[in-house]
């Protein structure tokens, strides 16, 4: 089979279709409003004429001879008895009428002015700016003329009545008159008014011929009762033809002018609603049921319209969607695909000498056994379905040049996606791992880029079908390639939840780990040999947790940083840190410190960042895989749980918290007293009321915090919730405060709760009570439970939160859409410039230095310096590094070339 060069649409020109062209492209004139005859057969020259295309299976199109599904459909036309206005151009027609002479049709400007404006228009077009401003001045200036400079005709102002009436001194201009006048406008004048005379003559805005869309775009459906139900557009066309006929009959019979005008109006109405059924001032045409008809404009508009609904977003083949669930044993770059899905999705193999045996194996297994095949395409291009019956026959027949549509198998590259696809990490390329059961499986460490969880989330999978597509997916979209976020150049993939808790438990406590345990912990990672043990007990070697973790670190890694749990003491004691929060890694060995969110967590991981930038993306992936597996093993080994009694505080702590809260309340009371006595000192720029509110809020906030501190201290560092909050695995100290200490002030719009009854929030309080509990301060903790009033205030605050998120998501969604739309066509060219589709330069060098934000160290040029430092003494790889450096510094160099 010879591959033909794929056809490509080079450009699309927009313009009006002239009546002549309408007739030329029409395959039949439509004259009757009837659709089918009594036998259910389309009537000739009716709206369902088989020359317009076919939708019934079995029939053949009279124009192209093809069957339903193959025939694209063909346009017909209706000859309108009198011209009508195209509603989309009603406003433009008004502008034109005011701009041209009512007698000779010339634009009411002097020749000099015309040349001047024409030049301006051309200048704007050249630099790619909108010509609207110039055109609007043309219309404004020409309207001022009282007398035609060419024929001397006195001009009369045109009044416009929505939607389609033009009045000249109370005398109505008929569309036919307007059309005649527009025909007189010279081509040159049309151009000055911003129109293209070659493709948009003004008189074509008044329709004399109406195209009848092919049946294929308005298919009728047959209801269960056997009755046919026509498309909205067909209904509208029926109306138009009926009125058109009546109009003609009346005109031929010499009916009075009044009746003619009425019919003309009616025809105008039907044509108007055919084009747009939501014009202001025109009652929408309705279906018998009262539902407004969906006509041409309605089909194009809006989110579900043709443009956004069917053209910008399309349904595709070779895709699958199902619920996701976690599998920590998979690599982050893998995706678990159910066998049933793998048998449905296929990849086309071109059979060659090298793979003919594989191909035969696939076909031999047939469509039912897993790595099988569903179809073969023979040398002559015929598709044959593989069945259990014919599989062996096909195996014999296969030869090079055939194609085999084989099942998806382990190692295939697929695209994996979760909506909303807000950034590029929302679609990444994974390798397939075919697994039993019915969900897609993924490593929980790739949840952050997708923003996925497993509470019922579904995800999509797409199978690239060409070699080019697979190459692009692998090179540009692979998970390994997306470990760092282009937003800030830090890792976005990394350990979450239990990974962090697990590694924290492993590395924070100095625990003796004997060989069987050590082997079990490292079972799933790629470690082959254990390092030197930390010591021996009863002759048995043992290791500590830090050593176990060190084994998954690459050799030669040096790193020091403060862990997430670091309290940022005044003077850091570094290695001596009481809480073991100062992490020191020397030559790939964890010497001090605990591993927590800062070390391996998504968004924050220092270690992953370092490994990615110094050991490459594959090592980074391997580290994430190992770290997450080790984390899971560790937490399983040690055990970790959190229950309701984990938020119990001791009786003393309870008393302490109570004291703190009542002291705060006292202070609030004092503040209120000072306020009512007029002794409160006003803060600069704030009113007295505001000052009081701010002070009270401050006081109560402080009270809640100290209650939290007491509770946190009381629970101790071994409490599960504290461990999770401190290591950054899940939750925060604030959550803990609210659970065990005190829930705190409930706020609406950042202020204490004010509204409700007159002068008070609830009838439980006295009018004007400004006290803590009267304005929504919740003293209880979630554990002790809320009082009735507290519960009510809590619900108020909670509701605001819900409303806020709902509002914000819609707002930021729209912002996102606008941003994407504005920036999507910008491309960095090979010369380093950023240009749009017109070739206009937006930036001379991307980001003024040509650096990829993803590759910089959190946005600095640090990485270049580091490479230089790292390799300045390196003689072995000198040449390759020189090349690398050159590549990195090229943008600046080219700039230097320009300016020397």
């Amino acid at each position, binding site marked *: 089979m010879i591959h033909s060069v794929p056809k490509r649409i080079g450009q699309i020109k927009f313009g009006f279709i002239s009546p002549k062209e309408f007739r030329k492209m029409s395959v039949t004139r439509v004259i009757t409003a009837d659709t089918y005859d009594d036998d259910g057969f389309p009537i000739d020259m009716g709206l369902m004429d088989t020359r317009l295309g076919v939708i019934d299976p079995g029939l053949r199109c009279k124009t192209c001879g093809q069957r339903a599904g193959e025939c694209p459909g063909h346009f017909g036309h209706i000859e309108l008895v009198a011209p009508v206005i195209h509603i989309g151009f009603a406003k433009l027609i008004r502008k034109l009428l005011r701009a041209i002479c009512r007698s000779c049709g010339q634009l009411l400007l002097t020749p000099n002015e015309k040349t001047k404006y024409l030049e301006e228009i051309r*200048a704007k077009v*050249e630099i790619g*700016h909108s010509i609207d401003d110039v055109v609007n001045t043309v219309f404004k200036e020409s309207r001022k003329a009282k007398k035609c400079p060419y024929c001397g005709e006195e001009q009369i102002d045109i009044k416009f009545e929505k939607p389609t009436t033009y009045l000249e001194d109370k005398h109505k201009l008929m569309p036919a008159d307007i059309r005649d006048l527009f025909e007189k406008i010279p081509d040159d004048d049309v151009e000055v008014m911003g129109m293209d005379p070659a493709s948009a003559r003004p008189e074509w805005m008044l329709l004399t011929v109406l195209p009848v869309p092919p049946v294929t775009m308005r298919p009728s459906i047959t209801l269960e009762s056997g009755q046919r139900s026509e498309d909205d557009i067909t209904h509208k066309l029926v109306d138009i033809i009926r009125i058109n006929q009546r109009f003609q009959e009346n005109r031929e019979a010499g009916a009075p002018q009044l009746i003619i005008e009425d019919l003309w109006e009616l025809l105008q109405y039907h044509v108007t609603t055919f084009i747009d059924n939501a014009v202001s001032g025109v009652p929408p045409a309705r279906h018998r049921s009262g539902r407004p008809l969906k006509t041409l404009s309605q089909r194009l508009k809006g989110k579900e319209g043709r443009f956004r609904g069917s053209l910008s977003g399309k349904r595709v083949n070779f895709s699958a969607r199902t619920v996701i669930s976690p599998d920590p044993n998979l690599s982050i770059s893998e995706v678990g695909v159910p066998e049933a899905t793998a048998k449905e999705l296929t990849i086309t193999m071109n059979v060659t000498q090298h793979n003919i045996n594989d191909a035969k194996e696939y076909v031999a297994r047939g469509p039912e056994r897993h790595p099988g095949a569903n179809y073969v395409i023979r040398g002559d291009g015929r598709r044959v379905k593989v069945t259990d019956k014919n599989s062996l026959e096909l195996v014999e027949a296969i030869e090079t040049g055939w194609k085999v549509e084989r099942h998806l198998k382990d190692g295939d590259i697929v695209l994996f996606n979760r909506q909303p696809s807000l950034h590029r990490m929302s679609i990444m390329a994974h390798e397939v791992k075919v697994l039993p059961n019915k969900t897609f499986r993924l490593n929980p460490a790739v949840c952050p880029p997708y923003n996925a969880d497993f509470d019922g989330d579904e995800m999509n999978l797409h199978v690239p079908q060409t070699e080019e597509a697979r190459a692009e997916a692998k090179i540009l979209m692979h998970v390994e390639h997306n470990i760092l976020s282009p937003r800030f150049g830090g890792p976005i993939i990394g350990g979450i939840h239990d990974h962090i808790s697990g590694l924290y438990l492993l590395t924070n406590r100095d625990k003796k780990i004997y060989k069987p345990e050590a082997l079990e912990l490292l079972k799933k990672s790629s470690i082959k040999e254990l390092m030197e043990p930390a010591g021996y007990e009863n002759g048995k070697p043992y290791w500590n947790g830090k050593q176990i973790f060190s084994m998954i670190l690459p050799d030669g890694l040096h790193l020091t940083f403060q862990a997430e749990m670091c309290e940022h003491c005044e003077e850091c004691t570094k290695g001596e840190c009481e809480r073991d929060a100062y992490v020191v890694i020397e030559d790939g060995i964890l010497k001090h410190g605990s591993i927590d969110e800062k070390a391996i967590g998504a968004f924050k991981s220092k270690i992953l960042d370092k490994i990615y930038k110094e050991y490459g993306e594959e090592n980074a992936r391997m580290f994430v895989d190992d770290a997450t597996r080790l984390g899971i093993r560790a937490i399983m080994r040690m055990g970790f749980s959190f229950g309701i009694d984990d938020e119990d505080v001791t009786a003393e702590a309870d008393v302490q918290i109570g004291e703190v809260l009542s002291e705060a309340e006292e202070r609030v009371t004092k503040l209120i007293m000072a306020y009512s006595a007029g002794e409160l000192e006003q803060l600069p720029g704030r009113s007295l009321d505001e000052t009081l509110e701010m002070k009270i809020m401050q006081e109560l906030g402080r009270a809640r915090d100290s209650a939290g501190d007491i509770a946190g201290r009381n629970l101790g560092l071994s409490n599960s919730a504290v461990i999770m909050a401190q290591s950054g695995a899940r939750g925060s100290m604030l959550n803990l405060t609210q659970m065990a200490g005190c829930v705190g002030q409930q706020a609406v719009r950042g202020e204490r709760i004010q509204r409700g009854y007159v002068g008070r929030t609830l009838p439980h309080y006295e009018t004007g009570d400004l006290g803590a509990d009267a304005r929504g301060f919740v003293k209880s903790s979630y554990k002790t439970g809320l009082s009735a009033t507290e519960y009510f205030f809590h619900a108020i605050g909670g509701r605001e939160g819900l409303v806020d998120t709902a509002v914000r998501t819609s707002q930021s969604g729209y912002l996102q859409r606008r941003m994407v739309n504005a920036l999507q066509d910008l491309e960095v060219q090979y010369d380093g410039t950023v240009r749009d589709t017109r070739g*206009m330069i937006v930036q001379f060098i991307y980001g*003024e*230095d040509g650096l990829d934000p993803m590759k910089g160290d959190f946005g600095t040029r640090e990485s270049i310096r580091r490479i230089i430092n790292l390799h300045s003494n390196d003689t072995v790889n000198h040449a390759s590094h020189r090349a690398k450096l050159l590549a990195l510094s090229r943008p600046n160099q080219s700039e230097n070339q*320009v300016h020397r």
Partner: protein
Amino acid sequence: MVPYHEILDEEELKFVLEHYNIGKEHLPKIKVKDPVIKEIKAQVGDVIKITRKSATADEAIIYRLVIG
């Protein structure tokens, strides 16, 4: 805060356009009524060389075409 603007001479302009393989109309624009353009008395059709302080590259040079 206003970066340095200067009118580009013919020779350098030719060099810039050749370097980027573009016409003048492909450059970013600046209005003739822009206060800085009024200050340096540039005309429509001139190309302005602007030397910015840059957060990423210390200094960046860009060009803008003066339009009406």
